Each structure stands twice: as C-alpha cells, then as structure tokens.
C-alpha cells in the first residue's frame, strides 16, 4: 500500500514542480503578499486620531502650530473645504483644522474621538484663537461603508475566477479547440463570456444588496439607477480583466496563482475593508491601477453622499477606458488551444 501511495505522491510532486508557472506563483505569491503587507501595515506607531488640515500645501508643516506636533494624531492635508467638512460629519475625520486666517476648526459633537482631539487642540490654544464650528452628522456606520466593498469584492472574485478560471479549463480540456473549428470568432466568444457572467453577477449583486439593505437598513443617499450603472460598468471591467488573465494560460493551477496575484492586492488596496485616506502616497497611487478602487469610490459616493452620475464621471470614464483596453487586449492575445 505504501508503495502505491509513494508512487502517486511522487508523481503528483513531479507534476507540481515541473509546472514552473504554478511553482513560481506558489512561492512568489505569499512572498509578495508579505512584503506588501509589511510596507502597508508595517508602521507600528500608527496614529489613533485623524485630523484634516485645510491648506494649499501638500504636506503639513509641524512647526506651524504646536498642535501639529501632537503625538498619535495623523495630520492629513486637505484642499476641498466642503469635502473635508462632509468627512467630519461622517466621522471619517475626527477634527478639521484651518490655521490660515480666519483660523477655525470643525468638530462633530457626536464623535467621541473628536472630543479627545478637541481637548488636545485646546491645550495648545489656551487663548481660544481658533474658532470652533460644530458639524452635526451621524457617524457613518461601518456596515454602510463596507457594504459596497463586500459586494465589490464578491463581484471581483466571481468575475475574475468565474471567467478566467473557466476559460482556462475550456482551453485545457479541448472545448475551446472544438469551438475554434466553428465560425465562432475569438471576439464573439469573449463577448459571450462577458455577457453571461455579467447577467449572473448583476442579478446576484442586486439580490444580495436588496437583502442586506432590508435587513440592516443600509444607507442609500443617491439613485439606485446610478448605483446599478456603476456596478454594471465595474462588472464588465472585472470580467474583461479576467479574460486578459485567461487569454493564454493553459494550466488551471497557474491561472489560480495569477488570479490570486491580481485579486489579493485589489482586496487589500482598493478600499474594500478600510479607507485608504492617510495611507502612503504610493499605496494610494497604486490603488488607482485597480478597477475595483474606482468602482468602490463611485459606489460609496452615490450610496453615502448622494452623488449623481455626473459627480462620479471620472470614475465611470476610467472604468470605461479600462474595460475597452482589457477587452481589446483579451481578444487580441486570445489563444484557442495550448501551444
């Protein structure tokens, strides 16, 4: 019995080791993930409070006021007053400060963290030269904030694996080769895959959204149609991205590795679980290459701030451009059969 187990064990190991692509990703993925997480979350002196500083400059000068040297507070430079005040209302900022005349700070009386940061500010401004303004607003529930992220993540996995992985399986088992012998063109095949997954994932997302919204009384400030438009465009983009990954790969294990390599950074860096504000500049820049970032940004603007389609026009334009590039690239490099 041991002889047979050994024979199968050895054969499977040889298969794994000789499939260079799979082996590479299995080693590389956790390594890259750990390095990435180290740089993103490696800062152990992570601030507990976040204060926005309205100013022109892109960096906050600690010497401009004693308050700006307070420890455990992260000072984020902001340029748009309306946007910054909205964040205070939603408890996304604990306090907003403007040192340029007329000096002023905004705080939400319903925010516990705002209360403590205000005490620290008062400590450094005993004469009360900085005028106080109170901003009313309910704290943004985490569940309201995270729902678009969860739905977006589900779409991402469904689109990328549901299309990418399946196409690789079709190629490996010869079904694509059989289709190649028909008048079907690569573009027709690709479009059919996109359409199929699109209908399925939108239906699933609508059902999950409706159920969650009913159960948890989810906040919805904007238009459902605008949200549907964003979700639709995002789904097309993610499906097309899956097709690019699957355009040539013939090993299911390699496809899995590649898809993980794409999905994990997106899950961590697209703002699924936590806001990226205050993250390192390079993290924010990197997040812009992921379609999920743009989709979530637009969805949250619609759901939480009541934005209209025009307000999220940049996000929609980027998603459209990415979709077009992925679709054309996927069809161009598509291969019906293993080389």
């Amino acid at each position, binding site marked *: 019995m041991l002889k047979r187990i050994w024979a199968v064990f050895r054969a499977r190991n040889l298969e794994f080791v000789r499939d260079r692509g799979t082996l590479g990703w299995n080693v590389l993925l956790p390594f890259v993930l750990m390095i990435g997480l180290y740089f993103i979350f490696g800062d152990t002196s992570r601030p507990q409070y976040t204060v926005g500083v309205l100013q022109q400059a892109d960096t906050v000068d600690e010497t401009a006021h004693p308050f700006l040297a307070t420890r455990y507070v992260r000072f984020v430079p902001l340029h748009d007053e309306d946007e910054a005040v909205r964040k205070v209302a939603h408890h996304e900022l604990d306090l907003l400060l403007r040192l340029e005349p007329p000096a002023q700070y905004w705080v939400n009386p319903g925010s516990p963290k705002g209360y403590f940061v205000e005490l620290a500010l008062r400590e450094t401004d005993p004469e009360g030269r900085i005028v106080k303004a109170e901003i009313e607003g309910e704290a943004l529930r985490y569940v309201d904030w995270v729902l678009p992220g969860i739905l977006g993540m589900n779409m991402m996995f469904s689109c990328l694996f549901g299309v990418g992985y399946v196409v690789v399986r*079709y190629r490996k*088992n*010869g*079904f694509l*080769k*059989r*289709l*190649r*012998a*028909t*008048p*079907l063109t690569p573009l027709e095949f690709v479009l059919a895959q996109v359409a199929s997954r699109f209908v399925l994932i939108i239906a699933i997302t609508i059902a999950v959204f409706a159920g969650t919204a009913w159960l948890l009384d989810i906040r919805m400030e904007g238009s459902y149609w605008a949200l549907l438009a964003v979700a639709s465009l995002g789904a097309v983009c993610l499906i097309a991205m899956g097709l690019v990954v699957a355009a040539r790969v013939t090993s299911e294990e390699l496809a899995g590795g590649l898809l993980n390599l794409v999905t994990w950074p997106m899950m961590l860096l697209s703002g699924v679980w936590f806001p990226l504000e205050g993250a390192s500049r390079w993290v924010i820049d990197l997040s812009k290459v992921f379609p999920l970032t743009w989709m979530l940004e637009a969805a949250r603007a619609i759901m939480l701030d009541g934005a209209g389609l025009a307000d999220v026009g940049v996000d929609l334009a980027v998603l459209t451009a990415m979709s077009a590039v992925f679709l054309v690239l996927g069809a161009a490099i598509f291969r*019906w*059969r293993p080389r």
Partner: protein
Amino acid sequence: MAIVLEARRLVKRYPGVLAVDGVSFAVAEGSCFGLLGPNGAGKTTTVEIIEGVTPATSGEVRYFGEPAGRRFREESGIQFQHTALQDFLTVRETLELFRSLYDRGADLDEIIDECSLGDLQHRDNRALSGGQRQRLLLAVALVNAPRLVFLDEPTTGLDPQARRNFWALVERIRERGTTVVLTTHYMEEAEILCDEIAIMDAGRIVAQGSPRSLLESHYPNVLIELPVEDVRDALGGIEHRVVEARGVVEIPTTDVNESLRQLASQVHGLNRLRIRQPNLEDLFLDLTGHSLRA
C-alpha cells in the same frame, strides 16, 4: 467530380520534430478519403492543419479551389479524436449550442434520429458511454449540414459492435453525398469506408490510391502462412518472411499449386497452413518496415 479539398505541400515543424513533411492530396466531392497510419504518423496534425485549428509551418489548404476560410468553416463538420463538451448540458442542448454557431443548420430531430440519440437527448452529456459519446460528437459535426466532414479516429476505443454501428452511420452520411475525410489506424475501417486512402508514416505520405488498386499494384500474389514453429529451418530455397508479431512465416506466391508442392516436400505437417489475400496491414509493413498499430 469536383475537388472539394486540396492540401498542398503541408509542413508542420515543432522544435526538434518534423510532424508533417510536405503532405499533398486532393479529395473528390462525395468520396470518403482516408488517412491511414500508426499513432504518431502525423495524421491528426495534418487534418488539424486543414481544419484550421493548428497553424501550418508552410503549405496551403484550398476548399473548392479557394483558400480555406470562412466558407470552409461554415460548410465543414469536425469530429475531433479528443474533445470535451460544455459541462451540465444535455445531448440536445449541446447540439443546439453548436447549431447556433453556424449560419446554416440541419434539422436537429433528423440528426438525433440518424445518430440514434433519441433516447439520450435529455441526458447530461457527461453520462454517456464511449459509443454514445462518439455518436454525439458525430452529431455535433453534422449540425450545420456540412458538405465535408472530418472524422479523426472516430472508433478508437469502441467495442467491435459499436464500431460496426458507427461504420453504418458513416455510410448513411455518405449516401447523402457528404464528403468524408477519415483518419484511422484500423485498416479494416479504411477498407470498408474509404474510396481512396493515403498511407502516412513519419509525417509523409508513402502510398496513395484506392485500397484495391494499392493492393493490386503492390501484390500480384497471395500469401501462404504457416506458424513459425511448424516450419523451423525447412524453407531453404523458398522466398519467405517471418512476421514475429504474429508468430508466422509468410510465403508470397503467384502459383499456389507449385508452392504447396514445394512446401509438402520440405515441411512435415501443413495442417495449420492458411492462404489469404494481402491487406493494407501487409502493405503498410512492406512500405514502412513496421506494423500499422505500432
């Protein structure tokens, strides 16, 4: 008769391997053309080049005198040697899927009936036996009412009964005037189904013609067979060949009476002697030096 398909100097080179080495042939409309050869001879690569699923290193494929293109795809049907179908589809749904990919389409009920799939049409295609699956793959190749059908080793792995049923099915397709290109390593299959064959070995065509004309041109004689152990060293002066794979000695002759007289004088015990006509397997052995099923 019009030439449906013409392969011109097809070459397929893989790193370190010349899989197809200058193959040329033409297929007449309504005929059954067979590519015969052992595994690895280059048959499947040749037909896959023609079908357009494998790019040729060089050479040309013409369909009704024109480079094979969209019209060829539209009017040809293909049964691959190995292929998967979409999972979770029934037999009928599978046929509907493929018929939808063509501008022209055959009556599905007729095809289902012709391929004896009536009782299976609502069964998941993964739950079919080997013979049933081959019939479904042939039905898939027929959904566009093709003028030309490729059958790549269609009966490999089937039991003798299923194989004969499949041959009858191919004969019915031919009766409709459909041209058939068949690859096989079963000489019996080629002899029964094909009007013309090309014997391939090591990527090249080594002989081409109708089965009968090939045998007549190469064998004006018949073969006398005796088990090796009955003969031992008693064949001095008689032309013969030892076929180790079958454990027999073959004696080609054009004068059976004279050969038998000679054998009777030299060999004790001719009870197991057999006289037969040469077949394609013999031809292949003579042309290439190795067995057809090697």
